[in-house]
């Protein structure tokens, strides 16, 4: 078996990314959608760290930024979710259609 190289990391990150995207697009529960968004962000982090091994520490620094950003975003997202739930009594994303014409 070949040694684990950068390619393996990238493929893993891509797979996680695609899973996250499919989750965002397909799942009915808003909480699951938010979790999928976290999955996407984590896939990006993995990508960044994989490349930092080759090109310097910038990648890792940026990954720290992304983690911070993800945390803030999760907080805000959950705040919106709670506000929405208080109004509409549901977490079905199909019901989030107030902004139509």
């Amino acid at each position, binding site marked *: 078996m070949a040694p684990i190289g950068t390619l393996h990391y990238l493929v893993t990150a891509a797979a996680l990314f695609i899973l996250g*995207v499919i989750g*965002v*697009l*397909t799942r009915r529960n808003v909480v699951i*959608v938010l979790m999928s968004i976290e999955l996407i962000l984590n896939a990006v982090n993995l990508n960044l760290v994989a490349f930092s091994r080759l090109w310097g520490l910038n990648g890792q620094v940026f990954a720290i930024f992304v983690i911070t950003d993800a945390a803030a975003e999760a907080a805000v997202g959950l705040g919106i979710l709670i506000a929405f739930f208080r109004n509409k009594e549901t977490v079905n*994303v*199909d019901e*989030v*259609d*107030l*902004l*139509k*014409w």
Partner: protein
Amino acid sequence: MFFLTHIWLIPLLPAFGAAMMFFFGRKLQKTTINTVCVGVVVLAFLFACGAVWQYTDFAHDSPGKPYQTIVYTWLGTDTGQMNYVMRDGKPAPFQADVGFLLDPLSGIWLLFVTGVGALIHIYSTGYMAHEGGYYRFFGYLNLFMFSMLTLILGNNYALMFVGWQGVGLCSYLLIGFYFHRHSASTAANKAFIVNRIGDAGFLLGMFTIAWYFGSLRFTEVTHLARSGHFAIGDPIITAATLLLFIGACGKSAQIPLYVWLPDAMEGPTPVSALIHAATMVTAGVYMVARSNALFVLAPTSMKTVAIVGALTAIFAASIGLVQNDIKRVLAYSTVSQLGYMFLALGVGAFSAGVFHVFTHAFFKALLFLGSGSVIHAMSGEQDMRNMGDLHKRIPITHWTMFIATFAIAGIPPFAGFFSKDEILWQAWSSEGGAYRLLWFVGFITALMTAFYMFRLMFLTFHGRPRMSHEVEHHIHESPKSMTVPLVILAVCAVGAGWLGWPHSIGGSDHFAKFLNPVFAHEARVFQEEGKTAQLAAGEREEEHTSPIEYGLMLLSVGAAVIGWGMAWRAYRHADKGYVEPIAVAAPPLSDVLYNKYYVDEGYDYAFTGRRKVGDVRLGVMGLGEASSWFDSHVIDGLVNGGGWITRASGSLSSWFDKWIIDGVLVNGPAILSRMMSYPLRLLQWGLVQWYALVMVMGLVGFVAYYAWR
């Protein structure tokens, strides 16, 4: 030289009187009105005498030198701001001012206008004593004197025209003095309108002179005309003089514009005497005499003047033969005598024409005032058929009118003989055979004049009384205010002619001598022209021998005496129901004459468009109707059309603004936006995951693009 330098006072005095009447007349007493209005005219006469007396001093060394004083520059300036280009291309320094010119010609007119005017004003105080509108009458009369004096004393055509219009206006006001009478107001309209036709000619002539000579001042125009710069027979001068003569025809009642004068007898008798006998109607003669230098340069115009004058003389005399209204006879007599004056001017006998104006003023005014006295005595009766046998009852009127009748008939030694005879002699002795015909016309007219005038006298004063008894009881001689002017005028009618006692019977002809400087040059030029034309035509030169002159003189007197005799036979003992000899001898002729040759009806048909004579309808519209149709349909149509075009373009603009600017340019983009938004907003479903899908698809697109690069 007070009177000369202050010559502008002469017209101003009556103007002052008129102004007083205008502002205060209604509240004034009769005596005040008398003092003011009659007083200003008498003063004007005294001033006029003074001015002419001082003029003879002024012109002592160079007789005929015109005295000119310019009071005020009216049109144009010294720097020539009203420059226009004359005919020969030079710029014209045009200037027309309020200026006064005194030379022998205007001096004579000034004297008799103010003199006769003063006498008529005095007469009017008696005649109009019982009439309403006393102050109005004298106001108008004074206004007339002002206008007439402006006309006479003006030093240029423009100022003369101001006076010309003024006298026309006053004629209208005074003829229509009894305006509540329909016939009077119609007659006033007729006078003014016919005058106006003449005025159009005067104006056009004036413009032509201004354009051709560059000036309107008499002194300058005469100087230019005499300078020999212009050829005799110059077409533009001929045109200008003919146009001026049309003006004279209107004002001085020549054919074809005489029709207003007989109807003008609707006005009070002093008005007829002043305006339509002595002064206003002579304005045309004055104007032609003043333009003598121009007329001499246009032999065609001279011939026209002479022919029209002679025709008018005989035409009007023939109508006067059968008229029954005493004032109508005198009116036609005036037209006829004016014809004599123009005949004189037309044959180059300018001073003879002016002399006849002078004598005519006296005896015609006397005749009119006398007829006024008769009418006053007859309690308003004017028809001679209802008069008769008045000579013992109103003796002063009778004798003064008789003197005037002798004068007008041309019986020596009364005034009319000298002037009329001079005219006839000049007509005969002018070069050219055709002028003999004019003499003959004048001769026949003299016969007719004598006849109808003596007819008037006999019918009015002699024969059996033909009036009603009431009227007969009231016959009384007129008051002194009326008879004294009659007597004064009678003295003048006798003596005025002696001023022009011709050389051939031993006189020294002061009148012609006085006027010599004004006319001598022109008379000579005219005689020269005639001689050249005659020699060219191959006739031998006429010798001016005295025997012919005496012979003609005897013939004129003979004609007058024959006329007198015929009238005596026919009318001396006229009783109720007398017959006119003409009616007996040739009834259709008598009808035609009595109806004035149907000229008024003819004018009615041609111009006013009266189409029904009784119940008969005649022809298509007259000139007046045609002009009025043209004005209301064509001209007003153009004006209205212009208005319609403006409104149509307005509505076109408003349509353009509403549909194109507002619709396409402003609303268009808005509508376009809205139309585009319909499909576009359908993209907003509100489904979050759908938006996310779209984002992902975009991302995939980008990646694919860069992957395949």
